[in-house]
């Protein structure tokens, strides 16, 4: 079945939309794309909903004729800016896939170095290397949809594909991870003496980390109207140092605008 072509597939009589999709990556671990291939049990159903026309990591001979571009990674070099703009021009819908694309991800930690040359010197010595401070996709082009997470939750990506196909709107939880954590009947990490950003981080991962008795690092960025002040108070009350709090808040870049010292913009 060709892209765009809906064939005979319908949902309750409404024809499905089968978009031509492309996957692209910038500075990242490419894990978010892999998550899609990691979805073995439903991969075939997924592929029946979208027509993958460009996926460098998995296919040769990609096409430049696509409607939806899933873009992974953050922007750290001039050639990436150009490539991204070109993708934006071609794509009807540009989706930021994963925390690197949405917030800069762990990569933006390098922006802690006020002078990027210091970071370069630390890794490459005097050898010249081209790299700029990390920017998010949104810093450069318009982003239509953001899929959060490091890595993204494959079920969420699938749900999005499904919603595009049947024409349902895509909504993410507005509330924090704690709600899902309770649904999963976990013992609160604070109770166990571990720090956790669950109270301020956007839910949707099904409290992935707390389910493993590991505190949340906020990879999905802030929930709607997070109570940052209280969060910090709680961390202090439970005896976690300023540094531990910062480590978590700055890890994926989602909270940078809420930390009082924005470091991605």
């Amino acid at each position, binding site marked *: 079945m060709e892209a765009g072509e809906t064939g005979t597939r319908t949902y309750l009589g409404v024809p499905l939309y089968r978009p031509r999709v492309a996957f692209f990556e910038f500075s990242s671990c490419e894990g978010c794309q892999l998550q899609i291939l990691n979805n073995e049990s439903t991969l*075939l159903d997924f592929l029946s909903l979208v027509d993958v026309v460009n996926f*460098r990591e*998995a296919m040769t*001979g990609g096409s430049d004729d696509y409607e939806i571009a899933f873009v992974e990674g953050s922007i750290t070099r001039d050639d990436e800016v150009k490539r991204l703009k070109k993708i934006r021009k071609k794509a009807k819908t540009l989706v930021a896939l994963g925390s690197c694309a949405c917030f800069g991800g762990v990569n933006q930690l390098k922006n802690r170095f006020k002078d990027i040359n210091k970071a370069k010197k630390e890794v490459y*010595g005097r050898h010249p290397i081209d790299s700029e401070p990390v920017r998010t996709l949104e810093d450069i082009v318009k982003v239509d949809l953001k899929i959060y997470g490091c890595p993204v939750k494959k079920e969420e990506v699938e749900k999005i594909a499904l919603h595009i196909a049947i024409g349902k709107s895509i909504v993410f939880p507005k509330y924090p991870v704690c709600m899902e954590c309770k649904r999963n009947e976990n013992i609160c990490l604070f109770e166990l003496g571990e720090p956790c950003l669950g109270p301020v981080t956007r839910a949707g991962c099904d409290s*992935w980390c707390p389910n493993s*008795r590991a505190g949340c690092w906020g990879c999905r960025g802030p929930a709607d109207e997070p109570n940052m002040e209280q969060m910090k108070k709680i961390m202090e009350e439970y005896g976690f140092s300023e540094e531990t709090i910062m480590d978590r808040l700055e890890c994926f870049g989602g909270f940078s605008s809420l930390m009082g010292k924005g470091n991605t913009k």
Partner: protein
Amino acid sequence: MKKTCNVNIKPLTRVEGHGNIRIKIKNGKLQEAKWEVVETPRFFEAILKGKKWDNAPWITGRICGICSIGHTLASIRAVENAFGIVPDEQTRKLRILLKHMETLQSHTLHLCFLVLPDFMNTGSVFPLIKTHGDVVLRAAKIKKLANDVCDCIGGRRMHPTRTVVGGFTMLPDKEELSGFSDRLKDITLDLMLVAELVKGFSLPDFSRETEFVSLKGVDDYPFIGGDMVSSDGVRMREEEYKKMTNEYMTDQSTSKWCRLSRDSFAVGALARLNNNFEFLHPAAKEMAEGFGLIPVNHNPFMNNIAQLVECIHVVKESIGLIDELLDSEFKESRQEVKAKRGIGVAAVEVPRGILYHSYEFDDNGKIVKCDCVIPTGQNHANIQHDLEGIAEEYAAQGKNDRELELLAAMLVRAYDPCISCSVH
């Protein structure tokens, strides 16, 4: 037959990360053969500077989406080595099992999703779903099992959540674990069938004498820690990794390159197998011999076969590990961690070869210096030399552009490069 060829692959597909291949042949004479690594660096070594020890595994795991488990375990080992923590038997077994399943997952992904299309004359695995559905489903089944075990032990198949310095935040559910035993036994057959299919393919017959570097097992096939050896006779301890890698910068790559006794060396499944053939599980050994893979084999394309052999090895070993774990009474999952000043190095065999993490800590357990040497980074120079070799050989044979392009791409792909990882 004098021919003029121009190969320009930009970027290479069906590999992780961005790399370009350029080959120029004029009148049958090789003018240029170049492996360019253009991936953007992410500066992990700088990022970690000044961060506390507990950030290291969590952040460095993000170096690579395919072998995040390997990175996490290497990072954990480096921190543990620095702090003098020795993991107990239970932790050691769980980590190996976790690593094995990552290896199985990664090798299957490479062989069946990335390499297979080359032999089936398609651009990707997607068309194969229709034409060779059984193979694709089989591969998906193997991969799913491997990933499911990773979920169960590591909390998550990618960027694991339960693996921490000192052990695990949480132990797997024994009931769930026991379920995997049968599934592992079941997929042995699937692997055999994949092997049958691969037997039908004719691998390019190209060999170039190469130095192979890997860990050396003491009494088993090595995966985590131990001495490093090379097929040229070098042997070193983990802490001496710098002397084993000799990283240097080159203009054609944003990744650092490595060398040892010669201009380049190779790491990966083939290197491991060449150096540790005696420790392979009998079933794996049998399969290797079936493919004529006897050490020391210098055909880089054989790395694909070595991966297949390792799949059998890890599956067989995992079945045993699960039995042992089920028979033992689970103990406390996590040791206490006391940070202290010092340097810790870890050498871990990840799917694509030997991976080193090294950290230097101050008194408060903050990272003063961080260094990661990635397998693909160690392979780049060897890829370059192989590329030259293969181009030269085929220039003489008068292959056309398309043939050469495919061969060059297949050569690089055989290394299963993880380019963004190598640049990190």
